[in-house]
């Protein structure tokens, strides 16, 4: 997907004044969190915390031994009769899938959700090769018809009203306008059923890939995950390389964490476990199973001790749901596949940190994301790390600081480095502010940066006598009190 991460400021402002987006965000966001909390209550917070720690440890262990587990996964899938492909770049993924599709004379592809396929713009590559990709997850289907990018990693079309979806189905599919959600879902079922039946290839993502048994695990509610992996003669699963999990028995932990964190469900309607193509005497199933294991910049996170933990992510979206910034601006503002707190780390590293300079800064570091993350990723600390790299540069990242920002930092430093200089600065400031201040507040100021504050908020005037001056009086008062004797109770 083309990265528009450099346009965060503009796009976030647009989102703030887009009525429909604000309506959608206000309607939806607290539901996610309420559902998540209810699901946690059902098993108790103590059990949940235990699961989070186990999930974190398993992921940490896996990433530290990623070479071993990817090799084991590949070996197992191959032994199961599947074909494993490795893709380092965007081009690799596109080439592998398109070439395979061409070789098999694929005309139509049905897709169940794959964020990695969004990263590499796979649909466009297929279309360019004369192949029709059909998204079957309702949210993905909607945004495919609308030619938009996903707004949220779990609910890609949550920004759309039922009226907008009805109009879309009318304009693009010739359907009569039906402003009833259940009927819209029915329309999608009716239109997509023939596609499932006639498709030559099914493409899916992978929520997890168990190395021990060579099993791809796909978590869905709609049934499209089942159909994409059962009906077409070829199934291609595309996975980010960090999705590997060591053991089959580890899946108990992750299947308890993911649905609850994502949608507040105890479990999703369907959990699909694919370990290879059909056997000869199976009644049905694809004859070919291909697994595409993708890097696409994940190795940059892997080799980076400070950011490696971001690879623990199981793409639940809980951090988006709780983030007060995401709740105001939504997913499109972030400009790429992964929005919200985890996106603020992953998107810059995958698209190039200098192109996504705003993302690590567009956060108050409130830490709510870390609290809800099912695998305990310390997102705020990683955002701080990225900020440091952008302003100062290091072996991973080229510095991208404007002279203006650097100047401000240096002025600040000069101002606070010495308490005497600070005092002089304070006296000067108190004097200069006099014409602008009323009742101890500054309202209309024409100082850059400060104007960003005073648009909607009063700014306090500098105190005429700072604390350090008052300290002497406090000391004097203290001695007087002491002289008054022990009778004075504290």
């Amino acid at each position, binding site marked *: 997907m083309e990265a528009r991460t450099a346009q965060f400021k503009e796009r976030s402002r647009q989102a703030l004044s887009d009525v429909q987006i604000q309506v959608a965000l206000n309607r939806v966001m607290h539901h996610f969190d309420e559902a998540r909390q209810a699901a946690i209550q059902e098993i108790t917070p103590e059990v949940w915390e235990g699961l989070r720690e186990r999930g974190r440890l398993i992921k940490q262990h896996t990433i530290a031994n990623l070479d071993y587990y990817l090799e084991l996964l590949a070996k197992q899938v191959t032994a199961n009769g599947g074909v494993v492909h490795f893709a380092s770049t965007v081009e690799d993924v596109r080439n592998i899938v398109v070439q395979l599709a061409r070789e098999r004379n694929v005309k139509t592809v049905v897709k169940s959700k794959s964020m990695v396929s969004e990263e590499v713009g796979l649909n466009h590559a297929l279309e360019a090769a004369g192949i029709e990709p059909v998204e079957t997850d309702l949210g993905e289907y909607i945004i495919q018809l609308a030619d938009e990018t996903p707004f949220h990693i779990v609910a890609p079309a949550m920004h759309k009203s039922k009226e907008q979806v009805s109009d879309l189905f009318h304009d693009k599919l010739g359907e009569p306008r039906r402003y009833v959600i259940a009927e819209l879902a029915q329309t999608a079922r009716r239109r997509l059923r023939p596609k499932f039946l006639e498709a030559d290839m099914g493409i899916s993502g992978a929520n997890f890939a168990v190395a021990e048994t060579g099993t791809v695990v796909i978590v869905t509610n709609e049934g499209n995950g089942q159909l994409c992996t059962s009906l077409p003669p070829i199934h291609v699963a595309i996975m980010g390389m960090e999705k590997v999990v060591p053991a089959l028995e580890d899946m108990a932990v992750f299947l308890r964490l993911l649905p609850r964190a994502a949608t507040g469900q105890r479990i999703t309607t369907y959990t699909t476990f694919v370990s290879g193509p059909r056997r000869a005497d199976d009644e049905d199933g694809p004859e070919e199973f291909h697994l595409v294991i993708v890097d696409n910049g994940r190795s940059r996170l892997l080799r980076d001790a400070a950011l490696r933990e971001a690879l623990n992510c199981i793409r639940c979206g809980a951090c988006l749901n709780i983030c007060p910034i995401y709740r105001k601006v939504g997913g499109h503002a972030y400009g790429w596949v992964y929005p919200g707190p985890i996106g603020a780390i992953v998107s810059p590293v995958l698209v190039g940190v200098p192109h996504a300079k705003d993302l690590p800064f567009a956060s*108050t570091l409130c830490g709510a994301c870390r609290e809800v993350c099912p695998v305990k990723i310390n997102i705020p600390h990683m955002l*701080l790390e990225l900020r440091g790299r952008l302003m100062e540069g290091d072996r991973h990242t080229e510095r991208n600081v404007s002279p203006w920002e650097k100047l401000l930092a240096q002025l600040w430093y000069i101002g606070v480095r010495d308490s005497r200089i600070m005092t002089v600065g304070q006296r000067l400031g108190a004097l200069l502010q006099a014409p602008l201040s009323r009742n101890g507040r500054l309202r209309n100021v024409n100082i850059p940066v400060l104007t960003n504050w005073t648009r909607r908020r*009063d700014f306090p005037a500098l105190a005429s006598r700072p604390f350090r001056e008052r300290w002497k009086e406090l000391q004097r008062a203290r001695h007087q009190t002491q002289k008054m004797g022990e009778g004075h109770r504290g």
Partner: protein
Amino acid sequence: MAADGIRASLFVTCLVDQFYPQVGEATVKLLRRLGVQVDFPPAQTCCGQPAFNSGFRQEARSIARQLLKAFRRSQFVVTPSGSCASMLRVFYPELFHDDPVLHKEAKDLAGRTYELSEFVTQVLGVTDVGAAYNGSVTYHPSCHLLRELGVRDAPLELLRNVKGLDFKPAAGRTTCCGFGGTFSVKYPYISEAMLDDKLQEIEETGANAVVSCDMGCLMHIGGGLSRKGSPIRAMHLAELLISQQNEE
């Protein structure tokens, strides 16, 4: 007295020093009332968080070195700011992670540093400071206090024991007010949108004052309240805890 013999150095913070000195005064008065001997190392200026949060770690380190020096001999360092306390406790050791000597000093300072409400309840063991306030109050937990330091209950315990105070809890889950330091001026539109939500939440409690342990949050919340002409007062916890008579 429980606090006999305890000496605490006040880290007043640049924000309080320059803009809200009355909060510093209230802090000193409160601590003294509880029997603490307070001193004020004059070399202190800023903890460096504005630079650190903006990515200027070099400048942050330079200032941090000074602060380490200024408080080297303090038995306790008490600060009326959750974010500054977390800077010292959580981030100073990280800032100096590859300098063994300074890292050790930072960890040592971290072990002696407390935000005001946790100092009163945990170190002094006091939950009733003998304050009285005739009014209704709601509490805004600042994010660093809550999530970096894990201080959730201390301010609430102190508030609940203020005589005459009508405590009005905010409904729903705790959310960031939208200050975030330089975030408030780098992304002002988002900051303002978050402020609107926070102000609505405060107004809905029906309280006539909002109390917090961080002047950054209060500057932002208070600035929004006063621009709206709202009668709701924004106060630091220390100011509330030294009040002894019925007010307003």
